[in-house]
Structure formats: C-alpha cells, structure tokens
C-alpha cells in the first residue's frame, strides 16, 4: 500500500521544497520547481520506492500529486 503522506514528502525532496507542505490537490506541472529533470527523478523514485513504472503516455494524463498516488496504487 502506498502511504500518501510519505509520497508527498518524497516529492518535496525531489522538488527541493522546504518552506511549505505539498497537498494531494497540487497541480504539479504548475509548480515553479517542476522541470523535465524533476519528472525523471519522479519516475525513478516511483520505480525505486514502489516498484512501478508509469509510461510517459499514462503520466501525461495525470494532473495532481493525488493522481500520481492513485496511478501507483492501481499498478501495485
């Protein structure tokens, strides 16, 4: 099972966000910290931590951090 809070903390680490807490409703593509590099780090982290690889096409459909959490749990 994926722990949503743990996932959000992992995303905060990737995005180097220290001054605030991310919420599941966050539209990650709109964050100033989001970049192509952050994207690759996210895919790698999900692969490492949850043993799931989300295809580029599927990932394009995801809008919020909560969507990513759901996508991971659907594939576990």
């Amino acid at each position, binding site marked *: 099972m994926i722990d949503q809070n743990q996932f959000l903390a992992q995303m905060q680490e990737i995005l180097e966000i220290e001054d605030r807490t991310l919420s599941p409703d966050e539209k990650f593509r709109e964050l100033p910290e989001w970049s*192509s*590099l952050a*994207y*690759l*780090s996210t*895919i*790698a982290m999900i*692969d*490492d931590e949850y043993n799931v*690889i*989300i*295809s*580029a*096409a599927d*990932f394009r459909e995801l809008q919020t951090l909560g969507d990513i959490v759901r996508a991971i749990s659907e594939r576990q």
Partner: protein
Amino acid sequence: MATQHIQNVTVRGIASAVPKRILEVRDSKSFPSVEEAEKFIAAVGVERVRRHLGTMCCSDMCQASAEKLMVELDWKPEDIDMLIFLSQSMDYILPATACVLHGKMGLRKDCACFDIGLGCSGWPYGLSVACGMMQSGGFRRVLLLMGDAKDNLSTPEKILEAEAKVIPLFGAAGTATALEYDSPAAPMMIDTCTDGTGYEAIIRREGAGRHPFKEDSLEYVVDEFGQTHRRIDTTMDGAAVFVFGISQVPRAVKGMLQRTGQSVDDVDYFLFHQANLMMNEQIRKKCKIPLEKCPYSLRDFGNNSSASIPLTMVTQIREQLTNGAPHKIIACGFGVGLSWGTVSLTLQNCLIPPLIEME
C-alpha cells in the same frame, strides 16, 4: 525468440578514435546560467564531449581505428572478408560508406561491404549480424566499424553556432571491432529486440523521405520538449526514453543472465550504452550491479550512440581487459528505434590499442 548462439567467432580486437578537440559542458553557451550547467552535469553526467571543428566524418574515425587495429593484429587489407559500417552518420546517402571505406583501405574485391543504419543498440546488433554471417565459415576476418558524428554541419562557424545553442549531450567517436572465425571459440549469446511503436521517441523528423529537406529545415527551433535544435537534428522525448530504458534494459539483462545460467557475481563487466547518468544508474541499481562492474565513459565523452560500448572498453577498462585473463562481459545497447540488444561474451587476449585522438 531472436536469441543467437554463436560458437565460432572470437573478438580479436577493439579500437576507438575521437576528435582531439574537447567541448567543456561548463563552458557551453547553450545553458542560460552556471546553475543550469551544473544541474545538467549532476543529472546527465556529461562534463565534456569530443567534437571536431571541421569536416571529420564518422568514417574517418572508424578508418583510423580499423587501420590501427589491423597493424597491431597484423591483418593485411587482403585478409578482410567483410566490412560493416554501422552508423546514422553516413558519408553519403549513396553509396554505402562501407564501400567508400573499402576503396580507401584497399580491400579485396571479393569482400562483402554494407552499411547498417542503427544507433545506440548498434554494438550488439552489429555483432549479431556479423557473427550470424560468419557462422557458416564464408567470412574469416571481419571488421565491424561503428560510431556517430555530431550534428551534420559544414563550416566551423556553423558548428560553433550549433554548440552555442544545442545542449552538449552527444559526442563524436568512431570504433572498430575485429572479429575472426575461430573454431571452437568461447560461446557468445545475443538477443535483439525492437519496439517500433516508440519510433518517435528519438527522431530526426526532417531531411529524409517522410519529410523531405526544405529551405527551412536548417532553422533552429524549440521542440515540444523545450530543446533547441534544427528540424533535421534529433528530437528526443526524454521521458519516454527514460521509461523505455529503465523498463526494458533490466529485463533484457536479467533475461540474458538467466539464459546463460549466470548471476551478476559471475560476470566481470556490464557494459551499457552511455545514455545519461540518471537512466544508467537506475538501470544498474535495478539489475543490482555493483558500480565497479559498470564502467562509465559518459563523463568525458558523452553519449556516443553505437560507439559508446566499445569506447567505454577502450577508455575505461583497457588495462583490465588486456591482462591475459578471460573476462565475462554482458553488454546492452538501447535507444533510438526503439531498439535494444544484449550480448554475453568472453573476452580474452583481446587487442585494445590506446584511444586515438585525431586533429
């Protein structure tokens, strides 16, 4: 299943040549700030690449590698039965660059020469084709030349303009792998795979048959992934390539270990195409390969397409490979196509001259 078992071909030698000129990533004007350059270095793992500031073609570097190797192996031009040039940087659209090299190197008339058009998966694929053809004994000594050049530019001014705009991921290199029919030889096993549904993940959209060359094909544009290049140059969907690499490559390596009845501990070196550090490290970790078994040439040479694997052998583990002991190797090339290939082989007394640097 496209798995080949080769019983009678030995890799006699491997050589590589690069341009002498070095392009430092930290000096590159293609990054908006120093921080961006440092971020690139940390994630992609490339600090410098070799680029020529003139008209040096991939075939020139391949020829230098082949000639050096032939001297050291004491192979004469008349000994060569087949020459394969594997590249996406051909001298001419017509004729095959293998034929051009055949003439320049003074080879025999009853020598088979042809080009194979592939990129990052080239070394395993080239071995697959060459060894497949050699198995019946019709070809004794074979040269497998491969590599790629930078973007296709005509003058130093245009090359410098491109270097100021395009992120320096790709380097230029040419390599030669010398194969000999040898019975019995240490067994070699090769898997070759394709996923053409991903053909657009790494693509040069304009210039060839689907979108012929037009007046504006040479203009610099920003592609949908935010990268600057000309329409005839490579567009890369980094995310799609990343997902492809970290899914298919560990599967291919594990499949090869299983088919050869080996564990990671049994293999001395795992040689991967040098794509980018994040992807390669993710692949290495998923395969549970210790870092010391996984040499990198990425930092000093960048991504060299089909030349990456032989270039890594020449620049990173040359002394180890030539110490007389047998070395078990699994090599995996992956990328444009999407295409990937894995080879398991043993190298012993393989001749590897030092890296050739060309003015």
